[in-house]
Structures are given as structure tokens and as C-alpha cells.
């Protein structure tokens, strides 16, 4: 990881510092990117109608939580983790198993025990479980660097996917888990889509606030220093591995939160939502938005979701190929970014 030559005395730039945006010529590109993507989002919502926009908004909220959380790891410790989808899956499956009310015996497929907990009881369990597993994994992974770290994080994603797929007594394997509970308190349940969108955005706001607090605290400053020069800060007596482990765990818990939200929103999970590809997309989003900037991660997630939905309306593209065509565009974008703008759209740190 190296900084840009013109990185100023301020360690991080966060939510829309307009003066800095307008300051430099480079800032102009950032400004245009911001304006373009937000205008595109608004125009899209007006054009497509409210119902569709609500769905897109919920998808955006989940991706945004994931990308903000991954950016804490990638942007602030310099470890390129491609295994984040594992924690997403752990959160989703915990909520799914604990809240599912389906009677599988009648369906004559593999049965798993039903707990039937309410959503708000299961969600903290999922988050905690993701955190506990993250500590165990982080202790092992902390000793690795650069490309070897990428390889082992690939490994974590593959191992977790295989557990979701093959531990049938727990996850029903490829059948998936149905009838996952929506958030409910007492007699009031969030069954309508708009309510769920507001709920998801509220959770996103909490995650963003938490990340912002982490980044601007002294803890965040130590993390930035670790990214810049780990040996130097270790000489000053900071236990860098502990810092890295802490931010890794917090990030994994956020991903678990996103997973719980996702499971409750779709009310059905199966292993195909947690393949390695999703992880690579997530890394792409974080890099697209820019490292070590919360605003950039939100922007990247927004751009990604709009790309997916926007490509549905290209006249020359058959509908079945939209998902794949989006990947082609994303891949080419990654290559172009690495060529011309390694710090991402609004980031200021290069890989």
C-alpha cells in the first residue's frame, strides 16, 4: 500500500467534504462521479416507479453494509480479503436456521430442527457467531501477507460455501431453507417492502455511523498507520496484530448483520447466494468506490446495483445474459481502474 503523493495532513476523508472535493483537478472527477451516480439513481427511481425502486434500494442497502464493512479491512489494514462472503453466509444461515418455521417433514426433503425464534432474537446470535468465527479465523490468517493472504481468504470463502452446501443436517444443503421470519416486535411485523427498506436503511445508517466512529477515533488512526508502515508503528509499541484482529472481527460482525438482513428479506436462503463470485464482486465494489473512504463504498455499492438493474433495459441484450454481461462490464472496469486510477472513484489510497 502506498499513499498518493498529494495526500494531505488529514488522514482520512469521509462523508462529502465539499471543500476538498472542489479543491483539486482530481477532485473534479470525484465530484462528477458523485453527481452522475446520484442523479442516475434518482432518475432511475422516477423512471421505474416506486415498487421497483424499493427492491433496488433494499439490495443497495445490503451491498452497502457489506462493502463498508469490507472496506474497514481492505482500506485500513491493507489486507485484501476475498472471503468476506463467508461471514455474510454465516449471519444469513444463523438467522435462517433459528427463525425458519417450515415443516420440512411434509415436503419429504431433508429435515432440520426448527427453532422458530423471532428475528430480533436470532440476529444478534448471527452477528456474534460471525464475530467468534472471525476471531478464530483471524488468529490463523493474521500472519499472512499480500498475495498469500488473498489465497487463504479464497480458501475461507470456499470452505464456508462447502459447509453450507454439504452439511445437510444443519443447512439442508442445496434445498435451502424456507419461511424465514421477517422482523417483528410484538404484534407488529415488517411484512411490507417499504417498511423493510426503511429498516434496512436504518441498519445501514447505524453501520456507517459505527464505521465513522471507528475511523475517526484514535483506534482508526493507528489502523491508518498500520497500513502505511506496520513495522514503524510496531516499533512504537502498538500491538498491530491485535488492532488488525479487532477491525477484522468488527467487519465480520457487520457482514453477519448484512447476512441476517438478507435472509430475512428474501425469506429463503440456499448456498448459491454465497458463492466465491459474490465475494469477488464485493472486492470489486470496494475498489471501485475507493479504499479507506466510507462514502466511496456507499457510492460503489450504488453504482454496482444500478449497473445491474440498468443493464436490464439495454435493447440489444437478452434478459438471460444480463447478470453475466454485468460481470463483463465490472471486470473491464476493474482493469481500467487499475490502469488509470488505482485509488478508485473517490479514494485517495492506492493498493
Amino acid at each position: 500500500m502506498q499513499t498518493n503523493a498529494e495526500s494531505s495532513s488529514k488522514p482520512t476523508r469521509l462523508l462529502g467534504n465539499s471543500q476538498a472535493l472542489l479543491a483539486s483537478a482530481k477532485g473534479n472527477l470525484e465530484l462528477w462521479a458523485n453527481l452522475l451516480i446520484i442523479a442516475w439513481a434518482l432518475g432511475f427511481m422516477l423512471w421505474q416507479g416506486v415498487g421497483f425502486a424499493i427492491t433496488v434500494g433494499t439490495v443497495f442497502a445490503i451491498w452497502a453494509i457489506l462493502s463498508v464493512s469490507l472496506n474497514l479491512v481492505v482500506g485500513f489494514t491493507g489486507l485484501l480479503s476475498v472471503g468476506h462472503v463467508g461471514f455474510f453466509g454465516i449471519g444469513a444461515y444463523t438467522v435462517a436456521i433459528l427463525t425458519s418455521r417450515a415443516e420440512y417433514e411434509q415436503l419429504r426433503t431433508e429435515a432440520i430442527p426448527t427453532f422458530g425464534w423471532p428475528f430480533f432474537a436470532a440476529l444478534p446470535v448471527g452477528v456474534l457467531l460471525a464475530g467468534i468465527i472471525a476471531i478464530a479465523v483471524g488468529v490463523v490468517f493474521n500472519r499472512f501477507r499480500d498475495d498469500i493472504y488473498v489465497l487463504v481468504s479464497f480458501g475461507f470463502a470456499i470452505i464456508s460455501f462447502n459447509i453450507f452446501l454439504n452439511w445437510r443436517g444443519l443447512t439442508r444443503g442445496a434445498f435451502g431453507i424456507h419461511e424465514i421470519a421477517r422482523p417483528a416486535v410484538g404484534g407488529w411485523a415488517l411484512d411490507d417492502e417499504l417498511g423493510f427498506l426503511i429498516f434496512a436503511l436504518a441498519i445501514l445508517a447505524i453501520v456507517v455511523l459505527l464505521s465513522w466512529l471507528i475511523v475517526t477515533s484514535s483506534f482508526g488512526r493507528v489502523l491508518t498507520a498500520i497500513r502505511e508502515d506496520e513495522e514503524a508503528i510496531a516499533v512504537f509499541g502498538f500491538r498491530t496484530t491485535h488492532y488488525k484482529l479487532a477491525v477484522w472481527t468488527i467487519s465480520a460482525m457487520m457482514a453477519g448483520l448484512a447476512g441476517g438482513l438478507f435472509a430475512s428479506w428474501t425469506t429463503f436462503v440456499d448456498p448459491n447466494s454465497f458463492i466465491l463470485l459474490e465475494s469477488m464482486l464485493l472486492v470489486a465494489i470496494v475498489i471501485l468506490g475507493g479504499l479507506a473512504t466510507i462514502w466511496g463504498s456507499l457510492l460503489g455499492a450504488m453504482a454496482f446495483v444500478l449497473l445491474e438493474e440498468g443493464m436490464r433495459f439495454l435493447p440489444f441484450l437478452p434478459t438471460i445474459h444480463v447478470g453475466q454481461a454485468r460481470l463483463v462490464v465490472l471486470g473491464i472496469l476493474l482493469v481500467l481502474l487499475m490502469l488509470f486510477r488505482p485509488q478508485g472513484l473517490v479514494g485517495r489510497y492506492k493498493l
Partner: protein
Amino acid sequence: MIAQRVSLNNLLAIVLTAAAAAYVGWKISQSPDQAVQFAFNGLSVGAVYAILAMGFTLVYSTVWFFDLYYGAAAALGAYGVFYLRSQETLGGLYAVNNVFVNVLFAAVTAGVVAWALYESLYPRFRARFSPIVLRAILGLVAAGAGVYTGYVLSFPKDLHLTLSPVIAIGVAVAFTWSLYQVLQGVCAGRVLLGLVSITGLVAAALGAYCGYLIATTPDSKLYLSWGLSCFLAGIVGLAFYRGLYVYMRERSRSPLIMLVASLGILLAITALTSIVFESTPRPLPEALGNDPLAIAGATIKGFNVFTVGVALVGFLFLQFLLKQTAFGKAVRAIGDDEEVSKVVGINTTTVIAVVFFIGAIYAAMAGLLSGHDTAIQPRMGLLLLLKGWIASVVGGIGNLQGAIVGGFVLGMIEQFGIWDLAGEWRDVISFLLLILFLSFWPTGLLPRK
């Protein structure tokens, strides 16, 4: 403190190894027949991993960054064979022949051939011809090569007919060149010229005969399509290096930047493969040796024996290339220090481009061999890449002997590991093995000197 930690690590490693060995030994004593069967399976899986690991090591130990295109090359190799032979698989149910694909590969081939001709021939003939004429001639030759590639891809049914002239010319040139090398040491001047012209006549006859043989045996189509798809995957790998990575490495020396960029390439190519071929698994046509051979109470397919043979031949070829030739010396020099190699006068860009070409050919070979053994799907590339990567880490990163050993070791451990589990836990076993190795034995079995 550190010494304590090292000894503790060693102790843990020894205990784990002993436990694993005891477990496997106990299983073998329980049912020796089954053990032989697992060993055969491990060999056939390990051969594919070994081929992958060798190509991967070759590229990685030269440029020291991870090129994820390598995984896409494995998928391209398998899908190239499917593309060329899809009209024979399942009665042509999924036959694919896409104009865009043909044009794309034609263009890429033309570009790479143009670059190769310009690099090799332009400096030599610059004194004799005017540069414009020379460039026009080279451009025309390259365009011809591109058009020819497009033509071959458009009519895969007549592969043996369309490829026979190329094979004839290739055999003739190779024969003449190798004899010329031998004769140079023996004689000189007019005698040499005379002998070489006689050789050329013989070689032309030989080449013509080979071409005729290929053209009259339609059964050779499958093996021709193997060669063609490996070649095309190599060309694409070379094109990515020359057209993209060179500029990136000029701008930044960070290996992560290269990794993310090649991740983008892998994503894009995988998605394109899914668009052209659909993402459901597909079979490759029947290859040689599909009947199981019974040896020592267990069975192994003849094709798997062939795969092991390919791995060994590939290893010997790379050993020869790296240890015996000037090119190999240049490759090792670049791996040790690229800047100094440049100063000494090695054309690093060309050498690395050839390395990428060879590496991608190895990946494609592994991809199509594993594709004949099991089904193919667009996502196979990434998993094969990771397996090759793991095998090279286990064997000792950046070491060729380590790569082949690591490949076979990984295959064996995977197969013996699923003895008591279901087969679907294979990937988990190999990654656990990787993490254990990295924790206790980060240099691998045979560390690079």
C-alpha cells in the same frame, strides 16, 4: 521466545504429520485394495494439479505477481475443445459456432503474430528493405494468420483438412532447422549450404507426407483441437501480458494492483464463457483410453495414465528449457532480478511474454485433461487456478521440482482425505492442507534456493 515458538511449531507439525500418517496407515491395513484405488485416483487428480502448478510456478517465479488469467486459461482450454468438437458431442445438441468468437480470436491472433514478427524479423531486415515495405509485408503476414485462425474456427468440422498444410510446413521447418543446428557444428561454407538444401528437400517431402496423413485421418480431429485450443489460450495470455500488464508494471510495482486487474480479467472471461456456452456443466467428447484397466485389484482409466504421462513430459520439457537453453537462463535471471537482467541486455518483455505463453498453454492443457475426466463449466477456471496455486505452495513456491511434487502430494492427500468423508469435501481438505502448510511449513516441501 522466538526459538521456543519455532520448536513448538515444529513439534505441532511433527505430531500432525505423524497422526495423519498413522491414520492413513491404519486405513491401508484395513483394506489394501481400496487403498490402491485411492492411490490411483490421487495420481490421476494429482497429475492435473501438477501440470497446473508447473505452469503457475514458471510464470510466478519469473514475474512475482499472481496472474489470475491463469485460471481463465484453464477454462479456455477446456471450452476451446468443446467449441471445436461440440458438433460431435451428444449429437450436436449444444453445438456452438459464434461469429463474434471467431472474429475476436482472429483479431487477437493477428495482433500477437504481428508483434512476434516485428520483434524477431524487423531488426534483422531493417538494413535491406525500406521500413514501410517491411512493415507492410509483416502486417500482411499477420493479417493472413488472423484470417486463417478465424477460418479454422469457423469450420471446425474440417479441422484435419484445414490444419494439415500448417502441420506440413511446421514439420518441414522444424526438421530443417534441427538438422541445420547439427550440421553447423560439422561443416561450413558451401558444403553446409549444399547439405542444408538437400535437407530442405527431404524435409519438404516429409512435411508433405505428414500433412497428407493428417488430412486423410479424420480421427485426429480431437487431438488437433487440443493443440489448437492450447495454442489459442497461450496467445490470449501473451496478448494480455503484452497489451496490458507491461503498462501496468511500468506504472506501479505493487503485486496487489496486478492481482486485482487480473481478477477483473478472470471475471470478464468467465462471464463471457457463460454467455457463449451457458453456465450448466457440459461433457467433452470421448477421448482415448476410456476403458478401465485392472491393476492390483483396482481400476484406473487409460486416460488417467495418459494424464500422468503428460505431467511427466511437461516436467521434463520445462526442466530442459530452464536448465539447458539460453532462454531458460534468461528466464531465471529475470526471476532473480529483473532490473539487472535489463541492464545486462536481456529483452525482458519478450522473454516474459514467451513465459506467459507457455504458462497459459500448461493451464489450458490441465483444463482440457480435467475436462475430459469430468464435466466442464465456466466456473471451473477459478477452482483449478486455486488448486494449482495450493499445489505450488505445498511443493515450495517458485520451485519447479516442488511444483510437480506438490501437485501429486495434493492429489494424494485429497483422495485419502475423503476416504471417510463424502467426495464433496475435497476442496475443504485441500484448503485446510494449505493453511496447515502455511502455518507450520511456509517454505513448502522443496524450498526455492
